[in-house]
């Protein structure tokens, strides 16, 4: 494409991207406590969206193809839901969905009750974060892509 | 002789035609097998029904409770003498009409014969269900099925006219079904039961007088199948159906279900005493007397053969209701017997009309001159039916009319109201009118020369025998029923029923 590129915008966005990603990760898992998965995911998604805004959709799509997005969307949810289901299965169908105290795989690694919960929380936050990030990115592409869907597939190939 | 299957018999009797209908549906590819199922079912059903007669004559009743729908309402069958009369009539005539149907439908090479036989079997099943139902809800269920499954028969021709007739049929009968359901439910809420009990279940304690009178009107509207005026017009319209349908359903099964229901309401839900104390008997009698006269007058002006017979049916149905509404034992007995007598005679007339239509293609009364020379047996049978309709001996119709006239005298005595005697006058006028519109047909058929060359339709002749035999049998039976009215234990059954009611 013969679009004239602005070096300042290019460079800034390139330099900013890792920082945004790092901030997103921090929001997601850095704080001690529940919450942050959704916000972190949003921030990470923002980084990718910024990237494709600057370098074009086709470039952006190459960085993160739709199939990856689909995978991430599902994978994040599997992490979250899997934690819940695991606590049921691991406790031999005695504990409820997402009952952390029955979460044996981690129970061997960390000692106290609270810490255990915290570890599980971490997995869940990561799951939420991944899903949100992938969902937002794919939403962005779906809405921004003006041409037909078939065309989109061809371009990616 | 004991009932073949014990307490189950009424249920199986209803079930047999229903099962047969499914077999008919399955064997749609082979008409011969299909018709075999029909004939088999007719015979089995009649045997089952008839096997119950001795037990009923002993004054016993048979009950079979299938299940309880809600507390106080069961889905149950109960055989009593009155139900038996209706059941015998329907099931015995079904045999003959089935034979006739085979001849008729094959001669005309009608379409959709499987649908025809399927619906026919269901109609009989539901007519038997009506006869054997223990309470109003069971009766309602079968009553509705009867309406629905006869609609395809009315609209069988599939022409615009037939479809319009079908629509009219459903409009009238479904509306009446709604009234019946409403009345039934109101009865249930009032007394907590809808069982038929000789002597009635309602009483003045259950509701106010005016309420009970309105409920009665609701019930009568619910049995619109009885085709009293001014709600009669569906019946002549429905005559567009094939003749066997008009014969069995619109002279016996369907319309008699309506009459049957009215009798059930008066004798078994309201009870004679309540009916008379509410003054409902005389009101109803006046209402149907009007129908008796006017329907006959309309019949005189009608040129279409089957429609003329339909008006005659309307007249006779109202006549039966008149008998019941006189509220005296004799009259009720006469009415009950007349259900059977009228069935046999009217079916003879219809079958003759159908045979003439198939063989000569003539459907109007004015065209019939000289037919008697071509089809003497048929027209002779017709003569027997016509004589019976007019209430002249030696045909069964005389007995019914005689009893009802006696009943009118009896009512005048019982209730001390001479006004009941006027209904004898109604009977006589109706009989005269019957003669006026029926016997000229015979006259012109036998003694006048045909106006045009008679076209002999070959396809009709081929299966003429199938039609001739049933109509001869019904004609013969119409006479036999006069000489030996007890051939199906009819009088005894009617006596048992009346004894029960007046106990």
């Amino acid at each position, binding site marked *: 494409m013969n679009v004239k590129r602005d070096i300042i915008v290019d460079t800034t966005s390139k330099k900013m991207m890792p920082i945004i990603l790092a901030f997103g990760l921090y929001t997601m898992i850095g704080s001690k406590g529940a919450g942050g998965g*959704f916000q972190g995911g949003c921030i990470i998604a923002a980084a990718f969206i910024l990237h494709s805004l600057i370098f074009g959709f086709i470039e952006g799509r190459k960085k993160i193809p739709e199939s990856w997005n689909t995978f991430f969307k599902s994978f994040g949810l599997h992490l979250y839901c899997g934690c819940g289901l695991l606590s049921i299965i691991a406790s031999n169908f005695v504990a409820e969905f997402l009952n952390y105290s029955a979460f044996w795989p981690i129970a061997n690694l960390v000692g106290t009750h609270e810490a255990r919960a915290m570890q599980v929380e971490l997995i869940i936050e990561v799951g939420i974060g991944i899903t949100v990030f992938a969902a937002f990115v794919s*939403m962005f592409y*779906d*809405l921004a892509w003006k041409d037909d869907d078939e065309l989109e597939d061809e371009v990616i190939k | 002789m004991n009932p073949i299957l014990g307490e189950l018999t009424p249920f199986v009797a209803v079930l047999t035609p229903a099962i047969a209908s499914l077999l008919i549906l399955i064997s749609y590819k082979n008409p011969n097998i299909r018709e075999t199922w029909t004939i088999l079912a007719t015979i089995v059903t009649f045997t089952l029904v008839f096997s119950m007669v001795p037990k009923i004559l002993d004054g016993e009743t048979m009950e079979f409770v299938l299940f309880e729908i809600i507390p106080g309402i069961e889905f149950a069958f109960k055989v009593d003498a009155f139900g038996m009369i209706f059941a015998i009539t329907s099931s015995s005539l079904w045999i003959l009409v089935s034979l006739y149907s085979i001849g008729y439908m094959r001669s005309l090479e009608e379409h959709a014969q499987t649908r025809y036989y399927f619906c026919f079997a269901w109609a009989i099943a539901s007519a038997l269900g009506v006869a054997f139902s223990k309470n109003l809800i069971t009766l309602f269920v079968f009553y509705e099925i009867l309406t629905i499954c006869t609609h395809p028969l009315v609209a069988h021709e599939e022409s615009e006219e037939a479809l319009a007739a079908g629509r009219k049929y459903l409009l009238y009968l479904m509306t009446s079904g709604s009234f019946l359901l409403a009345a039934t439910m109101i009865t249930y809420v009032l007394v907590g039961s809808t069982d038929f009990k000789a002597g009635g279940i309602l009483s003045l304690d259950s509701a106010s007088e005016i309420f009970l009178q309105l409920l009665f009107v609701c019930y009568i509207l619910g049995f619109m199948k009885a085709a009293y005026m001014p709600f009669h017009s569906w019946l002549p319209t429905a005559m567009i159906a094939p003749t066997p349908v008009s014969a069995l359903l619109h002279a016996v099964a369907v319309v008699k279900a309506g009459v049957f229901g009215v009798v059930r309401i008066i004798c078994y839900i309201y009870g004679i005493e309540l009916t008379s104390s509410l003054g409902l008997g005389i009101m109803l009698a006046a209402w149907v007397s009007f129908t008796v006269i006017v329907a006959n007058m309309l019949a005189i002006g009608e040129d279409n053969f089957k429609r003329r017979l339909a008006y005659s049916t309307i007249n006779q149905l109202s006549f039966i209701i008149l008998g019941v509404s006189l509220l005296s034992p004799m009259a009720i007995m006469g009415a009950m017997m007349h259900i059977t007598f009228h069935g046999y005679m009217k079916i003879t007339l219809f079958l003759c009309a159908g045979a003439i239509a198939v063989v000569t293609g003539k459907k109007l009364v004015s065209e019939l001159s000289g037919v008697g020379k071509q089809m003497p047996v048929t027209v002779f049978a017709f003569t027997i039916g016509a004589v019976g309709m007019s209430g002249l001996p030696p045909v069964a119709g005389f007995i019914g009319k005689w009893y009802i006239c006696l009943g009118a005298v009896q009512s005048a005595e019982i209730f001390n109201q001479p006004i009941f005697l006027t209904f004898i006058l109604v009977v006589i006028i109706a009989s005269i009118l019957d003669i006026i519109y029926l016997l000229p047909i015979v006259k012109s058929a036998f003694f006048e020369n045909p106006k045009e060359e008679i076209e002999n339709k070959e396809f009709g002749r081929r299966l003429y025998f199938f039609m001739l035999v049933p109509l001869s049998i019904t004609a013969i039976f119409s006479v036999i029923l006069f000489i030996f009215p007890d051939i199906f234990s009819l009088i005894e059954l009617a006596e048992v029923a009346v004894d029960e009611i007046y106990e």
Partner: protein
Amino acid sequence: MIEAIFEKFFQHYNFWAAVVIIFIGIYATIAKNNLFKKLLGLNIFQTGIFLFFISLGDIGSLETLGIGDATPPIIWKPAEERGYLYVNPLPHVLILTGIVVAAATTCVALALLIRIHKEYGTLEEDEIIELEAIRGD
């Protein structure tokens, strides 16, 4: 008299704001002809509801009702001055969920709008209805 009314009004100004926003939103959703503006109206409506919910969580706003005054946990106050220790967090959590749902709704709606625009070339409802009538079934 008027002062009392004013006082009552301003004590619950956030609720009043929520009401105003909700009605603006509903108005836009119902009255606008453009499908996109309808969506915007819907979003405004949802925002109004979120504001309402969060106002519920702010116990300080109930202070004037005599229930007491609340302090968010980040602002330190001496213990004797605290009415409630913190703002009720539950409505906030609920609204977080609500926002996610709202975002999802918006996203589906936008995707639909894109498809509609592709199909009809316009987002004006009356024009779309006309076009539909021309096309038939």
